């Protein structure tokens, strides 16, 4: 390989290298902070590794977490192709989870045959999440509302809807048997929980993993191999030219937001049916925003979404364990995450310039 080819290759790898540098840099700063607060670095690292991938259980929990980030991230990438920014993941997760909970707890669903008892809630979550996302598209098309603002507001509304729905017995709150009954839903029946891949509770990887992978492939195909993907791209590059070329903008915009919302809703149902099993206030704790960041940092690449999702899944899980075993406040993870986001957002320019030169 001659020198120019090597240089070009290095150039091609620039986004990956920059991302790696940001992650490593943030982790180093994290270690410095660990030392600064007087915790031994090996203890902290051991705690992190144990929580992130130290046991089959931890590994599965991290990956299950990653699935949520991946689905929201995929939705972001889809809309991003049309140059639309979907900030609504957090709300789509919330309404998806509400829908899934309602269906799971609905009498009769648990008794459905052939796996329908866990599929039906997921479908409901997709539809409701899709509608929630679709509102953003409709507003964009009909009124010209900035999608960042509307999807952000819908996120907050969704989060508080979830909060409200577990506060009232008329909605999803479990029956009050005493004054100490927590404001959360009943646990969903066993048949509505997502089946585990291994059948072993020590390795609780659930069926969400293959579903998410299939959807990732599907999104990649839609983006690169279908007319719909091409239309999105045309709308994103120049909406006016796209319209002149006879592309109906409205269905594309509404459709892509519906799809993104459906992915977010599905993520919410997976969190419920695969991990938490009951709906409660603070159900998501910012997963939707993490997913948005994953989607953004992926720069339109589906593989990038998966990589980012795994990274954030590990960081979240490791951080929680680090607090428990090594007494490192888990807010340190927020610092690390914040630095990664800021560094990658700031360096986006150098990554896109490369793409533009192509």
């Amino acid at each position, binding site marked *: 390989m001659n020198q120019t080819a090597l240089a070009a290759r290095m150039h091609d790898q620039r986004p990956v290298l920059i991302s790696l540098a940001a992650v490593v840099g943030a982790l180093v700063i994290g270690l410095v*902070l660990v030392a600064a*607060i007087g915790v031994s670095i090996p203890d902290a690292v051991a705690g992190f590794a144990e929580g992130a991938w130290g046991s089959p259980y931890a590994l599965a929990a991290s990956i299950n977490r990653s699935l949520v980030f991946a689905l929201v991230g995929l939705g972001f990438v889809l809309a991003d192709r049309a140059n639309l*920014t979907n*900030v609504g993941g957090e709300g789509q997760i919330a309404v998806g989870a509400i829908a899934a909970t309602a269906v799971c707890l609905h009498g009769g669903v648990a008794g459905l045959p052939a796996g329908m008892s866990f599929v039906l809630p997921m479908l409901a979550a997709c539809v409701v999440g899709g509608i929630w996302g679709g509102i953003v598209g409709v*507003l964009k098309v*009909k*009124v010209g*509302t*900035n999608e*960042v*603002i*509307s999807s*952000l*507001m*819908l996120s*907050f*509304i969704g989060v*508080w*809807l979830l*909060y*409200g*729905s577990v*506060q*009232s017995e008329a909605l999803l709150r479990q029956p009050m048997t005493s004054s100490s009954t927590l404001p959360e839903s009943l646990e969903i029946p066993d048949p509505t929980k997502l089946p585990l891949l291994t059948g072993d509770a020590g390795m609780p990887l659930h069926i969400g993993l293959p579903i998410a992978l299939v959807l990732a492939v599907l999104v990649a195909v839609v983006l690169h191999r279908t007319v719909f993907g091409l239309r999105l791209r045309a709308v994103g590059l120049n909406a006016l030219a796209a319209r002149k070329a006879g592309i109906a903008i409205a269905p594309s915009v509404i459709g892509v937001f519906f799809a993104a919302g459906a992915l977010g809703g599905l993520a919410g149902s997976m969190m419920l049916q695969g991990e938490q099993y009951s709906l409660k206030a603070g159900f998501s704790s910012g997963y939707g*925003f993490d997913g*948005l*960041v994953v989607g*953004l940092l992926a720069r339109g690449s589906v593989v990038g979404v998966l990589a980012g999702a795994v990274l954030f899944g590990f960081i979240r899980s490791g951080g929680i364990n680090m607090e428990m075993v090594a007494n490192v*406040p888990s*807010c*340190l*993870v*927020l*610092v*690390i*995450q*914040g*630095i*990664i*986001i*800021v560094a990658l*957002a*700031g*360096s*986006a*320019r150098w990554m896109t310039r490369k793409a533009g030169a192509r």
Partner: protein
Amino acid sequence: MSDTANGAMVAVFAGSTLRLAVPLILGATGELVSERAGVLNMSVEGMMLTGAFAGAVGAIATGSPALGLLIGIVAVLPVALLQAFLSITLRANQVVTGIGINILVLGATTLAYREIFGGRSREQVPGFDKWHPPLLSDIPLFGDALFTQVWLAYLALALMVLVAWTLRNTALGLAVHSAGSEPKAVDKSGLSVTTVRYGAVLFTGVLSAIGGCFLSIGDIHTFTEGMTSGAGYLAIAAVIFGNWKVGRMFLACLLFGAATALQFQLPALGIEVPNALLIMLPYLMALLAVGGLVGRQSAPAYLTQPYVR
């Protein structure tokens, strides 16, 4: 209940509405300037939290709430500069930089507070006393309950009026407005869009920090982890609901303040309204506003668009 008792209750409600609206007014006034200049500054939340934290720590360290306020304002400058550098100079996605900064600040202030004060302590902060404005607070029935506020509340109102006047009547106001609606024209006139936008973001930082300080050293005299709890996002919602105009933004802040005050007052009256509904209301109102259901919205044309010469 007698008329006097009813009157007193209304007065207390009005007083706490204003008190709860003050941080929103400060944050929203700052955010309005940023957005009018074309920067959707999502980091208001982080800026307020920085102000609340540094103000509290400064007040404890120096024993003076005034010095605390000053320290709070100085401490926000690097945060605001970071937001400006990322979103203006590096042309990074404004929403994502804002979210990143908010996460970073939440983590850093929580970590630092725990390191300085240990555990989950609620260290008492030397704070500002309430000010009894002469005449106003002497008005019978409601004067004292409504107008006796920390002086920062009056500063907030004054700053808001000043900003409204500046935006409407001065060359500076025109420059800010044009940076968000017609940046090319600003450039051609010889002004730098970059400078105007940097200034706007720094201004947002300073006002947000004062808003944060109002929470920690003005209102409750202590710092708690993540104590802004979404006030920055509410400020953004207020700007949107206010259609990027000061008057309606102020109204929105008062409405949002009233919604929060109701959460405390309604249970006292024995009225059960779901809390979530009241908390959700501001966001729902903002959504309806941008959805075109409350008059025509006119966002700055170049909001969220980095300027490329």
